[in-house]
């Protein structure tokens, strides 16, 4: 089988997909990054290689997500793209005619507006990660319910309580207050979903024209309570596409297909990178008063990439093909 790999290294999950030559999704892997992106990428590659038939030819690889540069130098990516472009790319292919993409991941949330199949506007949360997957995870853990059941419990709410969603810290104290007053668990969870949706729409969605069809993707889209809260707040049907949690990786694979079509054969180093010894470290450059934190990635003891320096003296010192995409 021939096809394209897409790798999305996010703060919380690392996703890998394989598309065949006709860009049909053949296999997907969803792993927790657990703060170790290198191990996650290697583990994911091993897993997907094991699931796919032998004699595989990878014709192109794309990486995305906050760990895209790291993953890109590890595997030899043909394209390294930001997560906004990849998500938009994937949705516009999988959900034809989509006009609004609501995306909530582990640590970030974004909204992408498409018109006539082209991105016309987008927004992304800034420093504050209130209302993203990690916060829901944490609250589920505090209430001692598995995150997988969170949404279904919230769907049973009769009268969702009002919770302040502006800040995760306030939301938590508000929730505790409501809980001690005797509100039911479903009502509190549904109230939390509504608060997060309100916060998202006021922050990320400020000034955006949200038109149907609207899709909800990213890891948090698994939470049916959140989907319902979105539908209630927007007054629109919100669909969760089939590959909602690996959309970034799908987009990266699609873009990899485009990149090799334009630039020739793939730079993919092969599935053997799953066994190679990679190490990443950082040091503070003392060359000037900027004190840049330079990150260095090595493969089998050889430096393959450096970044983080403003002047470029460290990153350009790596004679490997350094800039991709």
């Amino acid at each position, binding site marked *: 089988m021939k096809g394209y790999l897409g790798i999305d290294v996010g703060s919380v999950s690392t996703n890998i997909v394989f598309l065949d030559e006709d860009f049909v999704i053949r296999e997907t892997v969803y792993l927790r990054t657990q703060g170790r992106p290198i191990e996650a990428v290697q583990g994911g590659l091993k897993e997907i290689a094991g699931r796919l038939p032998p004699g595989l030819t990878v014709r192109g690889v794309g990486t995305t997500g906050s760990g895209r540069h790291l993953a890109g130098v590890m595997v030899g990516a043909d394209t390294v793209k930001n997560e906004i472009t990849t998500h938009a790319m994937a949705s516009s292919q999988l959900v034809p005619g989509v006009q609004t993409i609501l995306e909530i991941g582990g640590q970030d949330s974004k909204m992408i507006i498409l018109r006539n199949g082209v991105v016309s506007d987008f927004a992304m949360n800034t420093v504050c990660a209130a209302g993203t997957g990690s916060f829901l995870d944490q609250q589920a853990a505090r209430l001692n319910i598995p995150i997988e059941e969170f949404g279904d419990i919230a769907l049973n709410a009769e009268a969702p309580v009002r919770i302040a969603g502006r800040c995760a810290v306030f939301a938590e104290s508000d929730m505790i207050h409501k809980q001690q007053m005797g509100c039911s668990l479903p009502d509190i969870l549904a109230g939390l979903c509504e608060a997060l949706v309100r916060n998202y729409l006021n922050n990320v969605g400020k000034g955006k024209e949200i038109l149907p069809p609207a899709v909800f993707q990213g890891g948090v889209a698994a939470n049916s309570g959140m989907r319902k809260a979105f539908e209630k707040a927007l007054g629109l049907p919100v669909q969760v596409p089939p590959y909602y949690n690996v959309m970034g990786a799908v987009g990266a694979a699609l873009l990899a297909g485009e990149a090799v079509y334009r630039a020739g054969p793939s730079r993919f180093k092969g599935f053997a990178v799953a066994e190679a010894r990679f190490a990443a470290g950082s040091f503070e450059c003392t060359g000037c008063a900027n004190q840049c934190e330079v990150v260095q990635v090595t493969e089998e003891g050889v430096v393959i990439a450096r970044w983080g320096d*403003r002047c470029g003296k460290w990153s350009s010192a790596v004679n490997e093909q350094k800039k991709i995409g």
Partner: protein
Amino acid sequence: MVMPVKVGIPRTLLYYYYYPMWRVFLSELGAAVMLTAPSTKRVLDQGLKYAIDEICLPIKLTFGHVLELSGKVDYIFLPRLVSVANREYVCPKFMGLPDMVRHRLAGLPPLIDVAVNLRRSGMDIYPAVWAVGRFFSASRIHILKAYRRSVKIWERYSRLLERGLLPEDAMAVIEDRLEKVPLFLENKVCVALIGHPYNIYDSHISMNLIQRLRQMRVTVVTAENLSEKIINRNAARLPKRMYWTLGRRMIGAAFHYLAQNSIDGMIHVAAFGCGPDSMTGELIERQARHCGVPFLNLVLDEHTGEAGVATRLEAFLDMVRWRRDKGVAEGGSQ
């Protein structure tokens, strides 16, 4: 031989508008002008340590630059800019800057904090010129000559900007130290960068925004590339007069570029905590949406991560190119 009086100028705030003028005026009067080096992390960290908490990022940075001059110069040139145009004001923080600096930083060389207030009349520049000149010369003729020469240079600087140069390049041309002339390639993506000069041209604060854009094969145009006439004509389209000079320049430039249809996208850069920016930014964003031009709003503060800025910028340019390739000519949101 008499040692020349050393005057330090912080490379912040309205340096980007007036430095060529200040430099010539002061050096014609016999002063040795010392400009601070471009901002670095250390300069900003110093500023953050000493500036008051509630102030905006560029003022905090200015504290850092002033500290860089401490002990190295005889005077620090920090004019109190109240108004630089008829019936208009500069930001109130600029008016209070000399006082803030004086009260927060001990052991500084004396400040040349002459007030410049041209709100009633442009002729009011002369009292300020005499007041600054008196620090160096007793001769009114000498001062007047220096001023005239500085105005000439400033006019040349403005002309260079209108020809499409950005401030650092224009200053390099004037001071005869231009190493490489930026070439203007046709058929590149053109983006209008709208923001306060001291935010967009300071490569530390803006995280190398202009250089990043140029590396991504983007032609950058700014408010400084337009004549006052064009800016005023466009700013006048607001239903009410904009009485902040800096805000008027941003609005006028943004409206001009949006009406011209010559740009592929617009990036608005605001400093977190800037009151006027929060309003002018909104006015510009609405107009950009109305015209269907891709728009990105970047808010910068000392906590802004470089990765977040890079991601947004990349995504924005992907969007701009994607739209251009598909030849989508949109009027408003369809």
